[in-house]
């Protein structure tokens, strides 16, 4: 429910209550005013008639019997209310009546009754409720109109803030730029959000810098470790102890893994930093062939057949290092998650690059395959950064990246659509 709809509901309840109360007050007020007015008029008529009788003139003949009657018989004196049948309308009409005793000089007293018709109850009620309904309708129409205007105008800054928040991307490294507002609440909201995003950006920046620095600074000690371990492996003394050399070799392998991990993290943070501006026209088909040839020993070792379907396409403006990394990681992924005797199929067209391979069904949400340190097999020695790098490179160039699994033949396909593809956004920003 919109905030304004909720507010309107309360306005409506309040208005209905006020309407009932107001109608009652109005009804009672009008009735009392009419009655007072009638009493005053009757009293004036009484004075006029008493003067006339005191002057010795006779009482006028009654014309309208209902409104003026004279009787020799005593009647109860003073004001009273009565209902009389209106013969023409055929309905009972409330009347105000005043009875007094007129005593002319040398005449027997007479009892005079004056009557005035008051407004009929239902008519009064109709008039009251009717006018109140008109007021209520005007009020409601006014409120709705006002709110429509307010939501369009007063709430515009809020809508703007909301749209900015929805479109906010932390990787742009920019805090939110929200304008000030004349409305205090919105100004405070925008200020709080801007501050919040600034803190977010600062945290993100420091994390990113930390990663980049850590990745860079560890390379030197790693280089020392690796070189010295390699020298240790050359020592003739190792031959005397059969257990020592494999230990050192494992240590060497671990050092190498660590350094690769840092290189991958460094690459990721450099892509995020946008440090790959230089782009040259690249023939992707040639690059795919080159990469496949480079990986041939790995393909052979697993008995995998490469199928390259490379359509001639115009060269693409890419950073050579990123293009290399993109192809390498896609192919490597297809090799690693393959089955013995399987194949690695690459389709390259002017619009997309598709790498597919047969492989066991992978459980889990495909969008999460692109997360960092995501491994299919937890015991795997791969750090699980390959597809993250692919994703980052695609995001960097605005390529769509999508993953599909075809149960028939159990084929996994990764598709890079040059230019944002239809399936791209789903995974690209996951």
């Amino acid at each position, binding site marked *: 429910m919109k905030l304004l709809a909720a507010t309107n509901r309360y306005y409506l309840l309040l208005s209905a209550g006020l309407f009932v109360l107001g109608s009652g007050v109005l009804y009672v007020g009008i009735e009392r005013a009419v009655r007072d007015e009638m009493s005053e008029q009757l009293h004036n008529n009484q004075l006029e008639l008493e003067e006339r009788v005191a002057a010795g003139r006779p009482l006028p003949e009654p014309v309208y019997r209902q409104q003026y009657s004279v009787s020799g018989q005593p009647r109860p004196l003073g004001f009273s209310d009565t209902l009389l049948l209106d013969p023409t309308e055929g309905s009972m009409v409330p009347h105000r009546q005043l009875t007094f005793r007129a005593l002319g000089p040398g005449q027997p007293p007479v009892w005079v009754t004056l009557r005035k018709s008051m407004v009929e109850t239902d008519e009064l009620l109709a008039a009251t409720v009717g006018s109140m309904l008109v007021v209520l309708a005007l009020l409601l129409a006014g409120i709705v109109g006002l709110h429509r205007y307010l939501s369009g105008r007063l709430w515009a800054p809020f809508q703007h803030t909301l749209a900015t928040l929805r479109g906010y991307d932390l990787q742009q490294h920019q805090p939110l730029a929200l304008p000030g507002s004349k409305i205090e609440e919105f100004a405070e909201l925008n200020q709080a959000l801007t501050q919040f995003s600034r803190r977010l950006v600062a945290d993100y920046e420091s994390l990113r810098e930390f990663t980049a620095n850590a990745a*860079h600074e560890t*390379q*030197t000690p*790693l*280089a*020392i*470790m*690796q*070189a*010295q371990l*390699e*020298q240790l*492996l*050359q020592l003739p003394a190792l031959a005397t102890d*059969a257990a020592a*050399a*494999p230990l*050192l*070799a*494992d240590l*060497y*392998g671990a*050092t*190498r*893994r660590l*350094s*690769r991990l840092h*290189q991958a993290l*460094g*690459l990721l943070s*450099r892509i995020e930093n946008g*440090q790959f501006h*230089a782009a040259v026209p690249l023939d992707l088909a040639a690059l795919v062939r080159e*990469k496949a040839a*480079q*990986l*041939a*020993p*790995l393909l*052979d*070792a*697993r008995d995998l057949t490469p199928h390259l379907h490379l359509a001639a396409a115009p060269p693409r403006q890419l*950073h*050579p*290092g990123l293009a290399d990394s993109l192809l*390498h990681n896609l192919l*490597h992924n297809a090799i*690693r998650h393959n089955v013995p005797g399987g194949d690695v199929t690459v389709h390259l067209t002017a619009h997309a690059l598709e790498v597919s391979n047969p492989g066991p069904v992978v459980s889990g949400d495909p969008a999460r395959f692109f997360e960092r340190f995501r491994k299919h097999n937890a015991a*795997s*020695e*791969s750090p699980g950064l390959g597809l993250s790098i692919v994703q980052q490179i695609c995001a960097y160039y605005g390529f769509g990246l999508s993953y599909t699994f075809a149960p028939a033949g159990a084929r996994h396909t990764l598709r890079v659509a040059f230019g944002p593809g239809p399936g791209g956004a789903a995974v690209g920003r996951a």
Partner: protein
Amino acid sequence: MKLLLVEDEPALRSTLVEALRQGGYVVEVAADFTQAYEKIKLYRYDCVLLDLTLPDGNGLDLLRALKADNSPAGVLVISARNGLDDRVAGLDLGADDYLVKPFHISELNARLRAIIRRRRFQGSNHLIFRDLTVWPDQAEVQVRGEALTLTRKEYDLLLYLLANPGRVLTKEAIAEHLCGDSVDAADSFDFIYTHLKNLRKKLQEKGAENYIRTMYGVGYKLSSE
């Protein structure tokens, strides 16, 4: 063969010097830009191993100075900077090759060999190891004068071993050399075994036995006896 190693990290410097001397090189060292600049101005080297990030200057300026002097020395850039832009800049300025830290010393040896071979056109453009003779320019191998037919990868492997005689080569180093730095630790290194087995068999058929030794759990070694 005289080399200049420009490297500011003392531990890495001493390890590399030791390894290079074992490989039969005469090695001089420079710990910073100033020392390195003096040495390249005063002496002649066959090859300069150049670290780009030095405490008092940029290694690329040393490269420029070498090229300005028309120095015949080969230059192998060694840097922790993995940025491809550095690599391109280095190669554009006339460096012969580029190696990213951390690297395998055996890979360094192989690159160094290749640079020196390319730079020395005169005379001995062939390698001799025991009964093996290799003409790298023609990619030809002979065992006691008999031609040996090898696949591309087997030939690469042999050349790599020949660049590191007597050194233990780790599986990682061999795999990365053969696959151009594109394998990682998660891959099985079985394929090296296949290539080595085939190479050994071909050598044996020509009567070259026990050239390649398996170091259990570590890697392989080209044995000189």
